[in-house]
Protein backbone atom coordinates (compact mmCIF):
# COMPACT_ATOMS: atom_id res chain seq x y z
CA UNK A 1 0.00 0.00 0.00
CA UNK A 2 1.54 3.24 -1.05
CA UNK A 3 -0.47 5.12 1.52
CA UNK A 4 1.47 3.62 4.39
CA UNK A 5 4.79 4.39 2.84
CA UNK A 6 3.67 7.94 2.37
CA UNK A 7 3.20 8.44 6.02
CA UNK A 8 6.89 7.80 6.69
CA UNK A 9 7.94 10.05 3.90
CA UNK A 10 5.60 12.82 4.76
CA UNK A 11 7.99 14.62 7.05
CA UNK A 12 10.68 14.61 4.42
CA UNK A 13 8.28 15.61 1.73
CA UNK A 14 6.79 18.45 3.67
CA UNK A 15 9.33 20.84 2.28
CA UNK A 16 9.26 19.37 -1.19
CA UNK A 17 6.11 20.80 -2.81
CA UNK A 18 7.64 24.21 -3.16
CA UNK A 19 10.07 23.10 -5.83
CA UNK A 20 7.70 20.86 -7.70
CA UNK A 21 7.53 21.35 -11.42
CA UNK A 22 5.06 23.79 -12.80
CA UNK A 23 1.87 21.79 -13.18
CA UNK A 24 0.82 23.78 -16.19
CA UNK A 25 3.39 21.88 -18.22
CA UNK A 26 1.70 18.53 -18.61
CA UNK A 27 4.64 16.79 -20.22
CA UNK A 28 6.64 17.34 -17.09
CA UNK A 29 3.83 16.33 -14.88
CA UNK A 30 3.73 12.88 -16.42
CA UNK A 31 7.33 12.22 -15.57
CA UNK A 32 7.21 13.07 -11.92
CA UNK A 33 6.42 10.40 -9.40
CA UNK A 34 3.06 10.64 -7.69
CA UNK A 35 3.39 13.26 -5.02
CA UNK A 36 3.08 12.15 -1.44
CA UNK A 37 1.45 15.38 -0.47
CA UNK A 38 -1.56 16.67 -2.33
CA UNK A 39 -0.34 18.96 -5.00
CA UNK A 40 -1.33 22.53 -4.39
CA UNK A 41 -3.84 23.83 -6.89
CA UNK A 42 -2.86 26.46 -9.39
CA UNK A 43 -4.29 29.73 -8.26
CA UNK A 44 -6.17 31.14 -11.18
CA UNK A 45 -7.19 34.73 -11.26
CA UNK A 46 -10.61 35.34 -12.69
CA UNK A 47 -11.80 38.59 -14.13
CA UNK A 48 -14.34 40.18 -11.84
CA UNK A 49 -16.29 41.49 -14.81
CA UNK A 50 -16.70 38.49 -17.08
CA UNK A 51 -15.46 35.68 -14.75
CA UNK A 52 -13.02 34.43 -17.39
CA UNK A 53 -9.31 34.20 -16.73
CA UNK A 54 -8.10 37.64 -17.83
CA UNK A 55 -6.28 36.29 -20.83
CA UNK A 56 -9.63 35.36 -22.34
CA UNK A 57 -11.32 38.67 -21.68
CA UNK A 58 -10.66 39.69 -25.24
CA UNK A 59 -13.13 37.06 -26.39
CA UNK A 60 -15.79 38.01 -23.91
CA UNK A 61 -18.61 40.42 -24.39
CA UNK A 62 -17.36 43.13 -22.04
CA UNK A 63 -13.79 43.58 -23.20
CA UNK A 64 -13.44 47.30 -22.50
CA UNK A 65 -14.80 46.98 -18.99
CA UNK A 66 -12.59 43.95 -18.34
CA UNK A 67 -9.59 45.86 -19.54
CA UNK A 68 -10.34 48.75 -17.25
CA UNK A 69 -10.81 46.41 -14.32
CA UNK A 70 -7.53 44.65 -14.98
CA UNK A 71 -5.65 47.89 -15.31
CA UNK A 72 -6.99 49.08 -12.03
CA UNK A 73 -6.53 45.95 -10.00
CA UNK A 74 -3.69 44.04 -11.60
CA UNK A 75 -1.61 46.47 -13.56
CA UNK A 76 1.26 44.00 -13.94
CA UNK A 77 -1.00 41.58 -15.74
CA UNK A 78 -2.45 44.37 -17.78
CA UNK A 79 0.99 45.22 -19.06
CA UNK A 80 1.62 41.60 -19.82
CA UNK A 81 -1.49 41.14 -21.90
CA UNK A 82 -2.02 44.48 -23.54
CA UNK A 83 1.43 46.01 -24.04
CA UNK A 84 2.49 46.71 -27.60
CA UNK A 85 4.81 43.76 -27.60
CA UNK A 86 2.16 41.34 -26.45
CA UNK A 87 -0.23 42.58 -29.09
CA UNK A 88 2.44 42.05 -31.71
CA UNK A 89 3.07 38.53 -30.52
CA UNK A 90 -0.57 37.72 -30.62
CA UNK A 91 -0.73 38.53 -34.28
CA UNK A 92 1.91 35.85 -34.79
CA UNK A 93 0.12 33.08 -36.56
CA UNK A 94 -3.07 34.85 -37.44
CA UNK A 95 -3.41 36.76 -40.65
CA UNK A 96 -4.14 40.45 -40.42
CA UNK A 97 -7.49 40.05 -42.01
CA UNK A 98 -8.55 37.31 -39.61
CA UNK A 99 -7.45 39.52 -36.75
CA UNK A 100 -9.47 42.47 -37.93
CA UNK A 101 -12.46 40.21 -38.37
CA UNK A 102 -12.03 39.03 -34.82
CA UNK A 103 -11.86 42.55 -33.52
CA UNK A 104 -14.96 43.51 -35.42
CA UNK A 105 -16.70 40.50 -34.04
CA UNK A 106 -15.74 41.38 -30.50
CA UNK A 107 -16.96 44.92 -30.89
CA UNK A 108 -20.24 43.67 -32.27
CA UNK A 109 -20.62 41.21 -29.46
CA UNK A 110 -19.93 43.88 -26.93
CA UNK A 111 -22.52 46.22 -28.39
CA UNK A 112 -24.99 43.39 -28.37
CA UNK A 113 -24.30 42.54 -24.76
CA UNK A 114 -24.72 46.14 -23.74
CA UNK A 115 -28.02 46.38 -25.57
CA UNK A 116 -29.16 43.18 -23.96
CA UNK A 117 -28.24 44.36 -20.49
CA UNK A 118 -30.08 47.60 -21.13
CA UNK A 119 -33.18 45.80 -22.27
CA UNK A 120 -33.06 43.54 -19.24
CA UNK A 121 -32.76 46.50 -16.92
CA UNK A 122 -35.63 48.26 -18.61
CA UNK A 123 -37.78 45.21 -18.30
CA UNK A 124 -36.85 44.87 -14.69
CA UNK A 125 -37.75 48.45 -13.97
CA UNK A 126 -41.08 48.16 -15.69
CA UNK A 127 -42.18 44.89 -14.14
CA UNK A 128 -44.57 45.19 -11.27
CA UNK A 129 -44.91 43.54 -7.92
CA UNK A 130 -48.45 42.71 -6.97
CA UNK A 131 -49.53 42.39 -3.38
CA UNK A 132 -52.89 40.78 -3.19
CA UNK A 133 -55.18 40.32 -0.26
CA UNK A 134 -57.19 37.19 -0.73
CA UNK A 135 -60.18 36.48 1.42
CA UNK A 136 -60.09 33.00 2.78
CA UNK A 137 -63.30 33.08 4.79
CA UNK A 138 -65.11 36.15 6.03
CA UNK A 139 -62.63 37.46 8.56
CA UNK A 140 -59.53 35.66 7.46
CA UNK A 141 -57.17 36.61 4.71
CA UNK A 142 -53.97 35.55 3.11
CA UNK A 143 -51.59 37.88 1.33
CA UNK A 144 -49.95 36.84 -1.88
CA UNK A 145 -46.97 38.64 -3.35
CA UNK A 146 -46.24 38.13 -6.98
CA UNK A 147 -43.45 39.34 -9.22
CA UNK A 148 -40.57 39.56 -6.78
CA UNK A 149 -38.38 37.22 -8.79
CA UNK A 150 -37.98 39.86 -11.50
CA UNK A 151 -35.87 41.81 -9.04
CA UNK A 152 -33.48 38.95 -8.39
CA UNK A 153 -34.93 38.09 -5.04
CA UNK A 154 -34.72 34.56 -3.79
CA UNK A 155 -38.36 33.78 -3.12
CA UNK A 156 -37.66 31.10 -0.57
CA UNK A 157 -35.49 33.36 1.50
CA UNK A 158 -37.91 36.24 1.16
CA UNK A 159 -40.72 34.00 2.36
CA UNK A 160 -38.63 33.05 5.33
CA UNK A 161 -38.05 36.69 6.09
CA UNK A 162 -41.76 37.47 5.96
CA UNK A 163 -42.55 34.49 8.13
CA UNK A 164 -40.17 35.56 10.85
CA UNK A 165 -41.18 39.19 10.61
CA UNK A 166 -44.90 38.59 10.90
CA UNK A 167 -44.66 35.41 12.96
CA UNK A 168 -46.98 33.64 10.57
CA UNK A 169 -46.69 31.01 7.92
CA UNK A 170 -45.25 32.11 4.61
CA UNK A 171 -44.52 29.87 1.69
CA UNK A 172 -43.63 29.86 -1.96
CA UNK A 173 -46.40 28.38 -4.06
CA UNK A 174 -47.30 28.18 -7.69
CA UNK A 175 -50.35 30.12 -8.67
CA UNK A 176 -52.80 28.75 -11.25
CA UNK A 177 -50.79 30.40 -14.03
CA UNK A 178 -47.78 28.39 -12.97
CA UNK A 179 -45.79 31.30 -11.64
CA UNK A 180 -44.18 31.35 -8.25
CA UNK A 181 -45.52 33.64 -5.61
CA UNK A 182 -45.20 34.09 -1.89
CA UNK A 183 -48.28 33.45 0.21
CA UNK A 184 -48.34 34.85 3.71
CA UNK A 185 -51.01 33.96 6.19
CA UNK A 186 -52.97 36.89 7.52
CA UNK A 187 -53.64 40.31 6.14
CA UNK A 188 -50.28 42.02 6.02
CA UNK A 189 -50.62 44.01 2.79
CA UNK A 190 -49.69 47.35 4.22
CA UNK A 191 -46.82 46.00 6.24
CA UNK A 192 -45.40 44.28 3.20
CA UNK A 193 -45.71 47.46 1.18
CA UNK A 194 -43.90 49.31 3.91
CA UNK A 195 -41.15 46.73 3.99
CA UNK A 196 -40.66 46.94 0.26
CA UNK A 197 -40.52 50.71 0.37
CA UNK A 198 -37.90 50.60 3.09
CA UNK A 199 -36.01 47.86 1.31
CA UNK A 200 -35.94 45.79 4.47
CA UNK A 201 -33.67 42.77 4.53
CA UNK A 202 -33.39 41.30 1.08
CA UNK A 203 -36.20 43.28 -0.51
CA UNK A 204 -33.85 45.75 -2.09
CA UNK A 205 -33.98 47.56 -5.36
CA UNK A 206 -37.70 47.60 -5.95
CA UNK A 207 -38.99 51.01 -7.00
CA UNK A 208 -42.07 51.64 -4.90
CA UNK A 209 -43.99 52.93 -7.93
CA UNK A 210 -43.97 49.42 -9.28
CA UNK A 211 -45.80 47.96 -6.33
CA UNK A 212 -49.54 47.70 -6.39
CA UNK A 213 -52.05 46.39 -3.95
CA UNK A 214 -55.06 44.44 -5.03
CA UNK A 215 -57.91 42.84 -3.25
CA UNK A 216 -59.49 39.56 -4.06
CA UNK A 217 -62.82 38.78 -2.53
CA UNK A 218 -64.89 35.74 -2.66
CA UNK A 219 -67.79 36.35 -4.97
CA UNK A 220 -70.52 35.36 -2.57
CA UNK A 221 -69.79 37.69 0.30
CA UNK A 222 -69.66 41.42 0.03
CA UNK A 223 -69.14 42.55 3.58
CA UNK A 224 -65.66 43.53 4.60
Amino acid at each position, binding site marked *: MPAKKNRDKKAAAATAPANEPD*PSAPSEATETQPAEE*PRPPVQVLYCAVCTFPP*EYCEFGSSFTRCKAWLQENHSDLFDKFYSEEALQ*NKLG*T*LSVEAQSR*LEKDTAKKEAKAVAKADAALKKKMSSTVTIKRIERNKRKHVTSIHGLEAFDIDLKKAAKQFASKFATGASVTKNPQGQDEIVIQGDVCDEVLEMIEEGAGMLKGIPSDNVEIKEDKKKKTTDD
Partner: protein
Amino acid sequence: MFKKFQPSTDIAGQTPVKSSVQRSIRASVLSQWKIEPETLEAIWPKKEGLVHVKCREHLSIYTVKGEPILFQHFDGPFYPTLRLLHKYPYILPMVKVDRGAIRFLLAGAHMMCPGLTSKGGYLPPKEEALPAGAPVGIFAEGKEHAVGVGITKLGTEEMKELNRDVGVETATYLGDDLWVVQSL
Protein backbone atom coordinates in the same frame (compact mmCIF):
# COMPACT_ATOMS: atom_id res chain seq x y z
CA MET B 1 -23.43 19.86 -23.56
CA PHE B 2 -23.91 22.92 -21.41
CA LYS B 3 -24.62 25.48 -24.08
CA LYS B 4 -28.16 25.65 -22.85
CA PHE B 5 -28.47 24.68 -19.26
CA GLN B 6 -30.89 26.21 -16.84
CA PRO B 7 -30.41 25.03 -13.28
CA SER B 8 -34.02 25.84 -12.46
CA THR B 9 -35.54 23.72 -15.19
CA ASP B 10 -32.90 21.21 -16.20
CA ILE B 11 -32.13 19.71 -12.82
CA ALA B 12 -34.32 16.78 -11.93
CA GLY B 13 -33.06 16.24 -8.42
CA GLN B 14 -30.17 16.06 -6.06
CA THR B 15 -29.27 13.01 -4.05
CA PRO B 16 -26.32 12.14 -1.89
CA VAL B 17 -24.35 9.31 -3.42
CA LYS B 18 -24.09 5.98 -1.64
CA SER B 19 -20.67 5.36 -0.25
CA SER B 20 -20.21 2.20 -2.26
CA VAL B 21 -20.99 4.08 -5.45
CA GLN B 22 -18.67 6.85 -4.33
CA ARG B 23 -15.92 4.31 -3.98
CA SER B 24 -16.40 3.11 -7.52
CA ILE B 25 -16.52 6.67 -8.84
CA ARG B 26 -13.32 7.45 -6.99
CA ALA B 27 -11.65 4.38 -8.44
CA SER B 28 -12.68 5.18 -11.98
CA VAL B 29 -11.67 8.81 -11.64
CA LEU B 30 -8.27 7.71 -10.43
CA SER B 31 -7.89 5.40 -13.39
CA GLN B 32 -9.21 7.87 -15.96
CA TRP B 33 -7.44 11.02 -14.88
CA LYS B 34 -3.79 11.57 -14.26
CA ILE B 35 -4.30 12.44 -10.65
CA GLU B 36 -2.69 11.27 -7.46
CA PRO B 37 -4.94 9.85 -4.75
CA GLU B 38 -3.67 12.53 -2.38
CA THR B 39 -4.67 15.34 -4.67
CA LEU B 40 -8.07 13.86 -5.28
CA GLU B 41 -8.44 13.56 -1.55
CA ALA B 42 -7.74 17.27 -1.26
CA ILE B 43 -10.37 18.10 -3.87
CA TRP B 44 -12.88 15.64 -2.63
CA PRO B 45 -12.25 14.50 0.95
CA LYS B 46 -13.54 11.07 1.80
CA LYS B 47 -15.64 12.39 4.61
CA GLU B 48 -17.31 14.94 2.39
CA GLY B 49 -20.15 13.20 0.66
CA LEU B 50 -20.57 13.54 -3.05
CA VAL B 51 -23.90 14.84 -4.23
CA HIS B 52 -25.32 13.60 -7.48
CA VAL B 53 -27.18 16.27 -9.41
CA LYS B 54 -29.31 14.61 -11.99
CA CYS B 55 -30.02 16.65 -15.09
CA ARG B 56 -31.95 16.15 -18.28
CA GLU B 57 -30.59 13.94 -21.03
CA HIS B 58 -28.72 11.53 -18.77
CA LEU B 59 -26.34 14.15 -17.59
CA SER B 60 -25.01 13.81 -14.07
CA ILE B 61 -23.06 16.44 -12.26
CA TYR B 62 -21.33 15.57 -9.03
CA THR B 63 -20.79 18.26 -6.48
CA VAL B 64 -18.78 18.54 -3.30
CA LYS B 65 -20.13 21.12 -0.87
CA GLY B 66 -22.32 22.47 -3.64
CA GLU B 67 -19.43 23.07 -5.99
CA PRO B 68 -19.56 21.02 -9.17
CA ILE B 69 -16.35 19.05 -9.58
CA LEU B 70 -17.12 16.45 -12.20
CA PHE B 71 -19.78 15.47 -14.63
CA GLN B 72 -20.68 12.53 -16.74
CA HIS B 73 -22.90 11.83 -19.69
CA PHE B 74 -24.63 8.47 -19.55
CA ASP B 75 -21.98 5.93 -18.53
CA GLY B 76 -19.27 7.81 -20.34
CA PRO B 77 -15.99 9.00 -18.91
CA PHE B 78 -15.89 11.48 -16.07
CA TYR B 79 -15.00 15.02 -17.01
CA PRO B 80 -13.65 17.50 -14.53
CA THR B 81 -15.33 20.87 -14.57
CA LEU B 82 -13.35 23.65 -16.14
CA ARG B 83 -12.74 25.37 -12.84
CA LEU B 84 -11.21 22.17 -11.48
CA LEU B 85 -9.10 21.79 -14.57
CA HIS B 86 -7.82 25.32 -14.10
CA LYS B 87 -6.66 24.40 -10.64
CA TYR B 88 -5.15 21.08 -11.65
CA PRO B 89 -4.30 21.39 -15.34
CA TYR B 90 -2.30 18.19 -15.53
CA ILE B 91 -5.13 15.78 -14.79
CA LEU B 92 -6.22 15.49 -18.41
CA PRO B 93 -4.05 15.13 -21.49
CA MET B 94 -3.65 18.39 -23.36
CA VAL B 95 -4.66 19.35 -26.84
CA LYS B 96 -4.23 22.85 -28.11
CA VAL B 97 -6.13 24.80 -30.70
CA ASP B 98 -4.81 27.73 -32.66
CA ARG B 99 -5.85 31.29 -32.04
CA GLY B 100 -8.35 31.38 -34.83
CA ALA B 101 -10.38 28.63 -33.25
CA ILE B 102 -10.79 30.21 -29.84
CA ARG B 103 -13.75 32.35 -30.69
CA PHE B 104 -15.61 29.43 -32.16
CA LEU B 105 -14.80 27.35 -29.13
CA LEU B 106 -16.14 30.06 -26.89
CA ALA B 107 -19.33 29.99 -28.91
CA GLY B 108 -19.65 26.29 -28.15
CA ALA B 109 -18.42 24.72 -31.38
CA HIS B 110 -16.71 21.37 -31.55
CA MET B 111 -13.05 21.48 -32.42
CA MET B 112 -12.17 20.66 -35.99
CA CYS B 113 -8.98 18.84 -36.86
CA PRO B 114 -7.27 21.66 -38.80
CA GLY B 115 -7.35 23.87 -35.73
CA LEU B 116 -5.55 21.18 -33.78
CA THR B 117 -3.02 20.20 -36.42
CA SER B 118 -2.05 23.69 -37.55
CA LYS B 119 1.03 25.51 -36.34
CA GLY B 120 -0.59 27.02 -33.29
CA GLY B 121 -2.27 23.79 -32.30
CA TYR B 122 -0.88 20.87 -30.38
CA LEU B 123 -1.62 17.18 -30.36
CA PRO B 124 0.24 14.65 -28.26
CA PRO B 125 3.20 13.10 -30.09
CA LYS B 126 2.97 9.64 -31.55
CA GLU B 127 4.22 7.84 -28.45
CA GLU B 128 1.46 9.33 -26.36
CA ALA B 129 -1.25 9.12 -28.99
CA LEU B 130 -4.76 9.18 -27.59
CA PRO B 131 -7.50 6.87 -28.76
CA ALA B 132 -10.93 8.12 -29.73
CA GLY B 133 -13.21 8.74 -26.80
CA ALA B 134 -10.60 10.07 -24.38
CA PRO B 135 -11.41 13.13 -22.28
CA VAL B 136 -8.97 15.94 -22.97
CA GLY B 137 -8.35 19.43 -21.73
CA ILE B 138 -8.58 21.94 -24.54
CA PHE B 139 -5.98 24.66 -24.32
CA ALA B 140 -5.40 27.55 -26.65
CA GLU B 141 -2.46 29.01 -28.47
CA GLY B 142 -0.65 31.63 -26.44
CA LYS B 143 -2.87 31.13 -23.42
CA GLU B 144 -1.96 29.67 -20.10
CA HIS B 145 -5.23 28.24 -18.91
CA ALA B 146 -7.61 25.76 -20.43
CA VAL B 147 -10.60 26.96 -22.39
CA GLY B 148 -12.59 23.80 -22.47
CA VAL B 149 -12.99 20.15 -21.72
CA GLY B 150 -13.76 17.76 -24.50
CA ILE B 151 -13.66 14.23 -25.74
CA THR B 152 -11.69 13.01 -28.74
CA LYS B 153 -13.83 11.87 -31.61
CA LEU B 154 -10.92 10.43 -33.55
CA GLY B 155 -7.62 9.05 -32.40
CA THR B 156 -4.97 11.74 -32.38
CA GLU B 157 -3.00 9.97 -35.11
CA GLU B 158 -6.13 9.77 -37.20
CA MET B 159 -6.68 13.48 -36.74
CA LYS B 160 -3.27 14.22 -38.15
CA GLU B 161 -3.96 11.97 -41.08
CA LEU B 162 -7.50 12.98 -41.98
CA ASN B 163 -7.22 16.60 -40.96
CA ARG B 164 -10.85 17.45 -41.38
CA ASP B 165 -14.13 17.21 -39.52
CA VAL B 166 -14.61 17.17 -35.81
CA GLY B 167 -11.56 16.11 -33.87
CA VAL B 168 -12.54 16.96 -30.34
CA GLU B 169 -16.09 17.27 -29.23
CA THR B 170 -16.52 20.04 -26.72
CA ALA B 171 -18.19 19.06 -23.47
CA THR B 172 -17.87 22.28 -21.54
CA TYR B 173 -16.16 25.54 -22.38
CA LEU B 174 -15.37 28.88 -20.88
CA GLY B 175 -18.51 30.92 -20.44
CA ASP B 176 -21.08 28.20 -20.98
CA ASP B 177 -23.95 27.67 -18.61
CA LEU B 178 -22.01 25.25 -16.41
CA TRP B 179 -19.29 27.83 -16.04
CA VAL B 180 -21.83 30.39 -14.99
CA VAL B 181 -23.19 28.09 -12.29
CA GLN B 182 -20.69 28.37 -9.49
CA SER B 183 -22.57 26.29 -7.01
CA LEU B 184 -25.58 24.05 -7.18
